[in-house]
């Protein structure tokens, strides 16, 4: 009896107030939306939102890993585009290219992430700058490659199947993929030395280094993983739209950061749970969906979007007072 109550209090204590608030905001958005239209609470609509959220979810997973280190990855836009374009480009090279299209796209993303990681971990350049620079380089390479137009190659059937198909009728494959990646991320963060090291470095890199962690290698791997996940998000997006486009990644950088931060992960690193990121991703997706359903002009949508993010952060994202 005492054991169960002990377990219960531990469970309640483990719930982050930020995560709870985020889930509360999701419920609030759903209720508000259902006043507007009945279909907001229908399973089809919710499943559709979950599907849209999965693309952001995959990208935000990588972003979260980097933010947990106390760093940031601003190279998301063109890593997404590079992953998508390179996967589509590989598809043009016969059956072998078609088979290797997805791994090739992800590999290009990992390469960009590795450059970021080497810059941050070994050259000690602030992550905000080095990721900005690799973003510019990736954009440059892609512009030269495509000649400034959207590439003509289209996505492979495998990519389309992953993004639009449904292995089990009714549940889209992307939702499965996000769930798999999420489960792996939770396992890595909670049960492996790598995950503990990520939290340790995010809290204080000196202390982590002095306790014998090879901090530079961990940081590099985290950036490479973030690049790979961004590129995988791009591959899925290309499968969804059946081709890659020039600025397809632009719409994912700020929502990814916002989702991670709204989920209660500290932008200074070292604190945050994956459940929070899931809540943040769904929150952002729902917010965008509701704003577009209400047919508000783009200007009003931007203002509401920014205002809501500020408001939510003021609710629970504030730093402790310094005095």
């Amino acid at each position, binding site marked *: 009896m005492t054991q169960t109550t002990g377990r219960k209090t531990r469970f309640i204590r483990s719930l982050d107030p930020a995560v709870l608030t985020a889930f509360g905001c999701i419920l609030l958005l759903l209720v508000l939306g259902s006043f507007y239209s009945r279909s907001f609470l229908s399973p089809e609509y919710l499943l559709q939102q979950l599907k849209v959220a999965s693309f952001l979810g995959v990208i935000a997973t990588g972003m979260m890993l980097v933010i947990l280190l106390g760093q940031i990855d601003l190279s998301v836009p063109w890593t997404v585009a590079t992953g998508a374009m390179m996967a589509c480009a590989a598809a043009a090279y016969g059956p072998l290219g078609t088979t290797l299209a997805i791994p090739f796209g992800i590999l290009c993303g990992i390469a960009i992430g590795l450059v970021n990681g080497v810059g941050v971990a070994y050259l000690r350049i602030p992550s*905000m700058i080095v990721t900005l620079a690799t973003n510019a*380089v990736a954009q*440059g390479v892609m512009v030269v490659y495509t000649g400034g137009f959207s590439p003509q190659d289209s996505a492979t059937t495998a990519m389309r199947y992953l993004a639009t198909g449904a292995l089990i009728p009714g549940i889209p494959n992307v939702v499965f993929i996000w769930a798999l990646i999420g489960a792996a991320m939770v396992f890595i963060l909670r049960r492996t030395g790598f995950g503990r090291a990520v939290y340790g470095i995010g809290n204080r890199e000196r202390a982590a280094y002095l306790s014998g962690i090879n901090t530079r290698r961990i940081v590099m791997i985290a950036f490479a993983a973030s690049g790979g996940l961004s590129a995988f998000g791009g591959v899925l997006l290309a499968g969804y739209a059946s081709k890659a486009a020039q600025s397809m990644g632009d719409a994912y950088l700020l929502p990814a950061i916002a989702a991670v931060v709204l989920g209660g992960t500290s932008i200074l690193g070292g604190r945050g749970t994956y459940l929070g990121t899931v809540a943040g991703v769904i929150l952002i997706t729902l917010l965008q969906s509701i704003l577009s359903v209400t047919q508000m002009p783009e200007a009003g949508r931007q203002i509401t979007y920014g*205002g809501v993010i500020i408001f939510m952060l003021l609710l629970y994202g504030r730093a402790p007072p310094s005095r």
Partner: protein
Amino acid sequence: MKDWQYRLAEHRGTLTALSIFVVMFIIYTANHPAGFTANVVQTAANKGVLLALVAMAQTMVVITAGIDLSVGMIFLLTNCLASWLVVGSPLETAVGVVIVLAVGALCGAINGAIVIYGRLQPIVATIATGAVYFGIALLLRPFPGGSVNEVLADALTGRIFSVVPASLVVLAAVIALIWVPFSRSVYGRAAYAAGSSETAAYMSGMPIRRGKLLAYALSGLVAGIGGLFLTFFTYTGDAALASGNAYTLFSIAAVVLGGVSLFGGKGSAIGAVFGALAFRTIGDLLFVFDFDPLWQPLFQGLILLAAVSLGALALFRVRNRLESFQ
């Protein structure tokens, strides 16, 4: 350390940016078909001053150990506002200019208030306020358009005595009237101190909150001057998301090239101005060397990557590996 050595070390970043700019500009004019003429300088100045103003705005926030990702959006918002207000009789124009600048300062102050009193991290707070400012800009100008007092515009983008570009004079005036008094005032020193170590600054009784708020507000003001100038150059207001984002990103690049530390407390807006001018000249170099314009983004990206990698040279001065962790 002797006095001159100390002063040299203090201004090393600014001097490096200045020398990069001078070398780049000499290469540029030497290869330009028209050579070093007033026309070439005027065109280069007009293009460079826009980025220089935005970079200066970014610097004021960066020295407080913050970052302003909304600076490009304040630039767009004031541009769109100016395309409505800075028209008509001289009096109307003057009132319009004052309102535009006040709105710029207000945007900056809102950022500052959210960061200082709301205790949010600057990077996320300004992403969100940037979306709001862009939304307002879009509300003002859903489509590119509007007009501006062309007499004033031509006067400020032309040449004085047909030699000196007027935009450079304005830039110098902004530095002399806003940056220099600010950086030497108590509040300016407090902003620097807060960027260097907020706890230490607080313990020594510096007015860090007011200093930081002033830094944010002046940053908005300078970004507003930039937006005003954009209107003078283009005669229109245009809420282009890509352009706002590009100015934000380039301003960070210019700040880094100008030797301003992103960790705060170090550097000068004058360095950032030269960083911005150098960055623009690098972009223009491609045109004089007849490169395919397709290669321009790649070239700019590689230059940026190389420039930031130079920061890694500081590692050679590290004697204890622990020093390399912030």
